[in-house]
């Protein structure tokens, strides 16, 4: 049997998963409150959601400060749920992503008829699911978190009742996602069978011990879990659902899927891979290398021909998933254990930059596509005349995604390529560099359209709303801020106690 399970107390739960508790309670409160609010008051509901997310963010920061002085990491139910900086830093990314999603949504919900309260609390529950995926050490709990995120996302995607595309997108997402769930579970079942525990920290030694005797079963489990999680991060060859779902979903939800949902799946992937399979990573890392290379290639090449802006962003997000796979793939050749922390820093830096840029870009996409009533990239034509601020911001976001200097995206990519070279993975670094060059083509295509002169020249100015400007402003400050002084974040990341004090 495992360790003695000490009883849960309110104090211990509050200390370790306070952020999750706040969000779940707010969600339930909004669910009840919805019955008593009239139409005008319901407009405040998303703001309540944002407030609860800010409080949750505060609690996560509290945890990160506490852990600096703690002698051992906080845990619940025999290391079923832990409070380490790995989880906390990912939680911060999710919370920022969700706050920005809600800010975009406030503008979006004013124009599209959707149930506001349901929308808000489903988003909060989805965020809780993401947080559970990042902080749990238990296969069952990780799986429950994954499903909480997924099921809430299916509903959010299919919420638009005026559009058949929305329901179809939800259906496709649900079917593919459910297959992903089944594959992940099939993989997890072998871990349990080989070790008799569902705790990945305790299974770590067990797996290393039986690797030689039952190599096929361990590898089967790894491949199945990779495929299942690969569906969630839209890794090639499991990316087919991504463009259709991103196109059909409400625009803020597309942003949420490509930022928070993807970051959560990465948090889960790294946790599982590092804990369960890292003992023999040099035997199987080629799988990851091939998948990362394919994902970068397919995402970037397919994006070139896209004419729908949301589909283009979908392929771009597939490509970004490929870049993010590189830091783990190169661990196969790593010389020392310290490289793990280096890779983690690269991933978190890139994700932070990516989430902010995605949110900023989608805020602008949401406004422009609604104004033009079309998602064709032609709706960006002449944006500079209509709103110079938006056109310049969008250009900076696109430059950051492409990885041009003085943006956060540049340092994100730079660090990953540097890490790959440091670990002697020259091929992967080369492919990453080459596919980035391809990506310039389609990112510059949009920029060229934005700065082109309108033919008739009398387009009305584009009015932004306060919340959208706020999102764009925040994203802009962080993107340029991290681009000019990346050390600000890298220093923090360097001080983190990733998996507790070593």
């Amino acid at each position, binding site marked *: 049997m495992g360790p003695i399970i000490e009883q849960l107390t309110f104090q211990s739960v509050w200390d370790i998963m306070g952020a999750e508790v706040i969000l779940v309670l707010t969600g339930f409160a909004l669910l009840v409150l919805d019955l008593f609010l009239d139409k005008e008051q319901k407009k405040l509901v998303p703001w309540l959601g944002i407030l609860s997310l800010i409080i949750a963010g505060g609690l996560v920061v509290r945890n990160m400060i506490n852990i600096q002085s703690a002698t051992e990491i906080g845990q619940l139910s025999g290391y079923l749920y832990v409070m380490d900086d790995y989880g906390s830093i990912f939680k911060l990314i999710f919370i920022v992503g969700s706050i920005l999603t809600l800010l975009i949504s406030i503008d979006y919900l004013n124009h599209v008829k959707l149930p506001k309260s349901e929308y808000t609390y489903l988003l909060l529950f989805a965020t809780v699911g993401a947080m559970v995926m990042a902080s749990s050490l238990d296969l069952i709990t990780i799986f429950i978190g994954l499903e909480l995120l997924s*099921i809430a996302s299916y509903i959010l995607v299919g919420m638009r009742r005026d559009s058949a595309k929305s329901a179809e997108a939800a259906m496709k997402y649900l079917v593919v996602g459910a297959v992903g769930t089944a594959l992940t579970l099939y993989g997890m079942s072998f871990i349990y069978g080989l070790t008799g525990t569902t705790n990945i920290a305790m299974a770590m030694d067990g797996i290393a011990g039986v690797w030689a005797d039952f190599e096929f079963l361990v590898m089967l489990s790894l491949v199945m879990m990779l495929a299942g999680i690969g569906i969630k991060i839209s890794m090639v060859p499991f990316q087919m659902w991504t463009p259709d779902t991103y196109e059909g979903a409400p625009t803020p939800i597309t942003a949420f899927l490509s930022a928070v949902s993807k970051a959560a799946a990465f948090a889960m992937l790294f946790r599982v891979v590092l804990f369960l399979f890292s003992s023999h990573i040099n035997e199987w890392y080629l799988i990851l290398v091939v998948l990362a290379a394919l994902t970068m290639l397919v995402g970037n090449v397919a994006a070139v021909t896209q004419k729908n802006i949301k589909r283009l962003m979908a392929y771009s997000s597939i490509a970004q998933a490929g870049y993010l796979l590189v830091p783990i793939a190169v661990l196969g050749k790593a010389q020392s254990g310290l490289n793990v922390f280096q890779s983690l820093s690269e991933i978190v830096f890139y994700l932070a930059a990516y989430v902010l840029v995605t949110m900023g870009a989608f805020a602008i996409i949401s406004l422009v596509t609604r104004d033009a009533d079309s998602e064709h990239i032609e709706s960006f034509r002449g944006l500079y005349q209509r709103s110079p601020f938006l056109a310049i911001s969008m250009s900076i976001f696109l430059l950051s995604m492409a990885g041009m200097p003085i943006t956060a995206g540049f340092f994100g990519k730079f660090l990953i390529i540097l890490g790959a070279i440091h670990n002697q993975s020259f091929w992967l670094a080369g492919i990453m560099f080459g596919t980035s060059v391809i990506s310039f083509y389609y990112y510059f295509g949009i920029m060229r359209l934005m700065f082109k002169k309108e033919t008739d020249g009398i387009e009305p100015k584009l009015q932004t709303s306060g919340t959208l400007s706020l999102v764009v402003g925040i994203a802009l400050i962080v993107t340029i801020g991290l681009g000019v002084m990346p050390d600000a974040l890298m220093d923090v990341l360097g001080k983190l106690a990733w998996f507790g004090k070593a």
Partner: protein
Amino acid sequence: MAFPQLTGQMIAFMLISLVVIGSAVAMLFTRRVIYMALMIGGVFIGVAGIYVLLNADFIGMAQVLIYAGAITILMLFAIMLTHHGHQEQTPVNGHTIFSVVAAGGLLGLLYWGFNTVDWAKWQSMSPKTDAPEWGTSSVKAVANSIYTQYTIPFELVSVILIVALVGAVILARKEEN
């Protein structure tokens, strides 16, 4: 794999497997959606039988209640709410060939892989007890485990159920105006 000896357990396993796989195959090839719902009921009950063979009585019961009861009925309702004619037989084309190759390939890989595993070693490493590890009452053991070790996922499942409930309502309800 050595040729298995025929014991009562073995015969029961063979019969149940036959029912499960037979129903699953019939389900995939039947042309009427409503028959399919009955076939899937057969699969679910057969799988419950497998659980009972493995001394997991409580899970077997839950399987009958949740799958054979709730999910099958839910499927039947959905079939009746949407109109389904005869399903045309899918023509043999590239898509069919791809499906057969992918699923057949997976099965072949698994069969080959399981044959390479040294199961005698597995047998020697796993404890040889005739009685299950959790004693006679699997209900008690499951309850104990859920309410001590797995309290957090248990609470989170309630959130999932609320999400699914709310989601089903807002997706399936009629337009208000």
